[in-house]
């Protein structure tokens, strides 16, 4: 009774959000899982349990290997997006951290794209990445042509092999500033004593960054990777507004949408669950890691 008095009121206060989470997150995940092992392939409803058939068919029996194609697209997109955003974010943070003039101004400039929604920027990028070349060129290709850099003109996202790398450009543009802000906070969080101590020990600037500052940024880099990584895997709105739903740039999230529109609920649920697992593979180890860190500190 005394213990109940201790945690009872707290639990009662938390209960609305707990119930909402239980129903609308975990309950719906359970429901989706249930649909994904059923044969609810049209609006008629489910006739029964089919086990993992929907999952295996996605990998072995999908027309034109549509699902594995969408996974490949997602992989290329994610790799280019993560590398690009981390690179530019770190670079900008590093430059700003060195104390250049008008730091506040540049910080705002770099961070600002994040305030624009993917849908709005996607429409602009759709026009910028116009695949026409030569005399019909538009957008970036026209700029390149005007500069006499015709050889650099690209088919952008319509390239069958590297199209998804182009698709990552708007995402990098949009989120590199966010990574910069994270790193900048990381840089600022390193106590000045450490730098002073390194300077006292006669460390060069290179050694200072290599052995003192960067090791301290690892948690920040990890957070940035996780945040960008899960955004990338769920990428939907940007691709919808740049290319629209089509084979060339299809990723699992768009495939789910397309499948839902054709009332194939079981297949859509199976793709959603795979997508959820993919994100979980990234997120869960991170949560365990940070949990341990918090306990030890």
């Amino acid at each position: 009774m005394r213990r109940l008095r201790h945690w009872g009121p707290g639990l009662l206060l938390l209960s609305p959000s707990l119930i909402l989470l239980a129903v609308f997150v975990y309950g719906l995940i359970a429901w989706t899982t249930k649909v994904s092992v059923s044969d609810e392939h049209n609006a008629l409803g489910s006739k029964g349990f089919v086990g993992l058939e929907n999952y295996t068919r996605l990998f072995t029996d999908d027309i034109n290997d549509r699902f594995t194609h969408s996974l490949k697209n997602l992989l290329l997109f994610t790799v280019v997006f993560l590398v690009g955003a981390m690179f530019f974010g770190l670079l900008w943070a590093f430059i700003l951290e060195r104390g250049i003039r008008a730091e506040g101004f540049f910080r705002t400039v770099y961070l600002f794209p994040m305030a624009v929604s993917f849908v709005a920027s996607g429409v602009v990028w759709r026009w910028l990445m116009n695949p026409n070349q030569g005399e019909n060129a538009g957008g970036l290709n026209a700029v390149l042509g005007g500069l006499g850099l015709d050889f650099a003109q690209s088919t952008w996202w319509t390239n069958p092999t590297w199209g998804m790398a182009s698709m990552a450009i708007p995402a990098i543009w949009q989120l590199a500033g966010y990574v910069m802000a994270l790193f900048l906070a990381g840089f600022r969080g390193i106590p000045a004593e450490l730098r002073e101590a390194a300077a006292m020990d006669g460390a060069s600037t290179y050694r200072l960054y290599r052995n003192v500052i960067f090791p301290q940024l690892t948690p920040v880099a990890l957070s940035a990777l996780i945040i960008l990584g899960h955004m990338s895997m769920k990428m939907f709105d940007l691709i919808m507004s740049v290319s629209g739903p089509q084979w060339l740039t299809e990723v699992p999230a768009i495939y789910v949408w397309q499948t839902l529109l054709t009332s194939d609920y079981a297949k859509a649920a199976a793709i959603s669950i795979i997508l959820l697992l993919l994100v979980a593979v990234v997120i869960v180890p991170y949560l365990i890691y940070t949990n341990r860190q918090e306990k030890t500190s």
Partner: protein
Amino acid sequence: MRFTRRAAVAAVGVAALLTAGACGSSDDNGGGSGSTKVEVFTWWADGGEKAGLDGLVKQFGTDCAGQTFENGAVAGGAGANAKSVLASRLQQGTPPDTFQAHAGAELLDYINAGQVEDISADYDTWGLKQAFPQGLIDNLTVEGKIYSVPANIHRANVVWSNKKVLADAGITKDPADLAAFLADLDKVKAKGIKAPLAIGKDWTQLMLFESVLITNLGADKFTGLWTGATDWNDAAVTKSIADFTQLLTYTNSDRDALDWTDAEKLVMDGKAAYQLMGDWEAADLDAKGFKDYGYFTFPGNGETFQWLADSFVLPKGANNPEGTKCWLKTVGSAAGQKAFNTTKGSIPARTDAAPADYPKYQQAAMADWKSAKPVPSCAHGSACSQGWQGAANSALGAFSTKQDAAGLQKALATAASQFVKK
């Protein structure tokens, strides 16, 4: 004492939250029995389509006194947005009084799900069986029952051309067959127009491919592709893929980045000579003030009219079935079809309409509708269900990048085996 205060705060907080939730969930039960509102769910939110709907509403006001029209239009995405809203409303059992759907196989999803009512009996009372061509009635009938009333007819297998570009290339008459068409394309290409045939993303490519299929298979075998009577591994399909591949070499390389209106602009700007598109292009070209266009049925299609139609249905569990039936009656009536189609730029499904009321292109299409053989279209849902349509679009999109002819045939054959109604 400390416990009670904390507990009280917690209890009050939770109670407040719950109350807020309860307020939000109070339902607005506008409908109910005896309602005289007819909620018409469409994706006609602007342009000629909205004007057509307004015309229909006006007619509905005179024909069905006592009933009020309620606009349930959901804009955007060429109907994709509306369809997803509709799907969730149907699942929740709160259907609109009537909704727009492509006539033909696309309705199968709703019919199989038992979401729409059989209105065959009303077809007899309203005299629609005599007013519509027999071919259309056959296409609309599913296991002896009819579920929808088409408001209009569009034609898909039409090639639109820029007359000036053709004159420059010395082309004076419409090509009679595919070989002549290819020769004309070469002539235009020789004049320095690199991509004489304008095309857009996946579904526009599917339309072109379907036209090539009609040319090579003929009307009956083509229709059979969608009913299971014709095998997709047929040699004529292989030949069609080869012809289609050859046609693609005359098209703009950025096709996957374009929608049909972007491709239309290439024709208007004289950067392309031809575009295959449905006959809503006539109304669109007129609206955009482009006069110098020509049109002909896709070479080799002969006397086939590849039709698609917007239609209205009576959903199961509609609030006001009586009002809905009156709406459907208006949609099918001569006056309703005239009010709708003269403004939307389509033609009436009825064969008894007076051509003089319609613009020039529509008059020609109406004459063809009476005489030509109707075949359905998959890209627009009259030949195949939505799932099949999605698979076909995806297969064409993949072909556009990979150009793998055997892969396309296999993909289409697999899709057919998955989706054809056994």
